[in-house]
């Protein structure tokens, strides 16, 4: 299908909306009626046609507006994109990975013409047509990682692998769930995960790291992660938390359906060929409670997950104060019927809500 790119904002007047198409392909992160941290990783080898898993780098109706939002964040705070000096080669690896994948997966939107080291990159949605020399930094307007990630939805962490650990030595981070690249730059896997409750004690990070260290080129992996955001604000950064934190207190029983968003990250992991670095794209999808609950299975399940989530997780994810209001709202969509296993909406087979 051809994508109709929306002209919308993720700040101030918040004109972001999801089409019916985007709602039904939303990566709902709960495969059962409860949630706890786990080593939830699987191979990233496509998925159902039209789903966010199908392509290596999903492009959707929010693409053009998300890239405009990223440019605004970077203009205000260039430290959201940083790369330690030894990471430039990994940046080229990433540029190649994305250009090749996007031009193969979306040939009507992106084209890559390669003649030896002379590369021509055409990005139709953003109106870009650039020719440059591969591996020559002076031929691009930004460093290679910044250049390509200004044109790709989602945040990117580029991890150097050494001493049996991963090191956050480069990144483009403007749509983060409240963590700071500038602060975490140079940390290892256990250090940047330090603030997460419970998962260290559960052994999750040890096992996850072992898995990641062994990811091979051409065999990417993925997982989903989630949190809650009031208003469709992409830039929930600690840097700007002194400005946006107060928005959490603007929820009312009348506006919560429109304002409260489930924020889901599709996280993927790719080994890079020349640098042996690992790239970790973190793609953020937002969906309002009002839209989510139009899918009867998701409405039932979201209520149960939010209700039963351990308080440490609700606190860490920053919605413990709003949880009672969320539950008041969500309980209308839970008629007690069982739900089918798995994350998919199952629109054909799940019964509609029994109003009661």
């Amino acid at each position, binding site marked *: 299908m051809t994508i109709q790119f929306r002209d919308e904002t993720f700040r101030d007047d918040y004109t972001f909306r999801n089409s019916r198409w985007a709602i039904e392909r939303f990566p709902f992160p709960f495969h059962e009626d409860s949630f706890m941290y786990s080593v939830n990783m699987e191979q990233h080898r496509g998925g159902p046609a039209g789903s966010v898993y199908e392509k290596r780098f999903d492009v959707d109706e929010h693409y053009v507006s998300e890239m405009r939002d990223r440019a605004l964040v970077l203009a205000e705070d260039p*430290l959201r994109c940083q790369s330690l000096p030894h990471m430039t080669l990994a940046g080229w690896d990433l540029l190649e990975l994305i250009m090749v994948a996007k031009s193969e997966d979306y040939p009507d939107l992106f084209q890559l013409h390669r003649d030896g080291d002379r590369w021509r990159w055409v990005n139709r949605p953003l109106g870009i047509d650039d020719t440059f020399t591969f591996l020559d930094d002076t031929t691009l307007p930004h460093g290679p990682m910044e250049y390509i990630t200004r044109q790709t939805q989602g945040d990117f962490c580029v991890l150097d692998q050494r001493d049996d650990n991963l090191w956050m030595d480069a990144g483009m981070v403007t749509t983060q769930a409240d963590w*700071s690249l*500038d*602060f*975490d*730059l*140079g*940390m290892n896997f*256990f*250090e*940047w*995960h*330090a*603030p997460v409750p419970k998962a*260290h004690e559960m052994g999750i990070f040890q096992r996850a790291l072992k898995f990641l260290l062994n990811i091979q080129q051409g065999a990417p992996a993925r997982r989903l992660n989630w949190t809650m955001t009031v208003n469709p604000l992409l830039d929930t950064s*600690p*840097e*700007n*938390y*002194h400005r946006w*934190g*107060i928005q*959490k*207190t603007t929820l009312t029983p009348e506006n919560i359906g429109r304002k409260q968003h489930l924020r889901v990250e599709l996280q993927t992991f790719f080994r890079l060929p020349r640098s042996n670095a690992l790239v970790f794209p973190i793609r953020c999808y937002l969906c309002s409670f009002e839209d989510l609950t139009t899918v009867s299975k998701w409405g039932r399940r979201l209520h149960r997950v939010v209700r039963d989530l351990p308080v440490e997780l609700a606190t860490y994810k920053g919605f413990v*104060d709003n949880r009672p209001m969320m539950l008041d709202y969500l309980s209308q969509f839970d008629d007690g019927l069982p739900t089918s296993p798995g994350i998919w909406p199952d629109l054909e087979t799940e019964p509609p809500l029994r109003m009661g």
Partner: protein
Amino acid sequence: MTKFDFPPSIKSRPVWGTLQARPGRHHLFVADAEGAQAILDVATPDLMAGSHIIYVPRGADHADALRALEPAQFHEGPSYAASVPRLRRALQDAKMGLQVYLAGTEGVMGQAMAEAVAAGIPHTAIQTEHRGSTARRMQCVHCKGITEDVETDPFVCAHCGLNLFVRDHYSRRLAAYQGVRVDAEDHGNVPEPRGIYE
């Protein structure tokens, strides 16, 4: 003098050790204030014969005791910042196998460690020992300004004036803990400051 027992914390928070003389011909010590005591505890004439000590008293009076150890080189700096060019020079001259020892406050150890790491010494090869004040060096995550010697939680950012709470999340690269606006979700509601470890 008894050493402060830091409570258990998260994995980004540094864990300080106890200095031990290591074999080698070249030794670099950086210490502030009560950190001098940790050097006095490990010093031997042999060790001192190959040692360069950079000491910032910050009101403490241990300089003469350190001088009396007769290290190969001794420098008393009026502040840590003033000592940095000399520290960089010493690290630049570093011979293979240079042993680095840091002692004193977290702020000075953290900054000197960042210099040593920048000079190519792995952080795991650097010895540390905390002595004296438990004040923290804090980065304001909002304005990026550093406030030195923070003893209370919350505290006022010395740069932008926001009231910040003190996290345990620590960056070795910045040699600082993270400070985050405490009243972001309820403007003006700032709790009474208390000692960080109270």
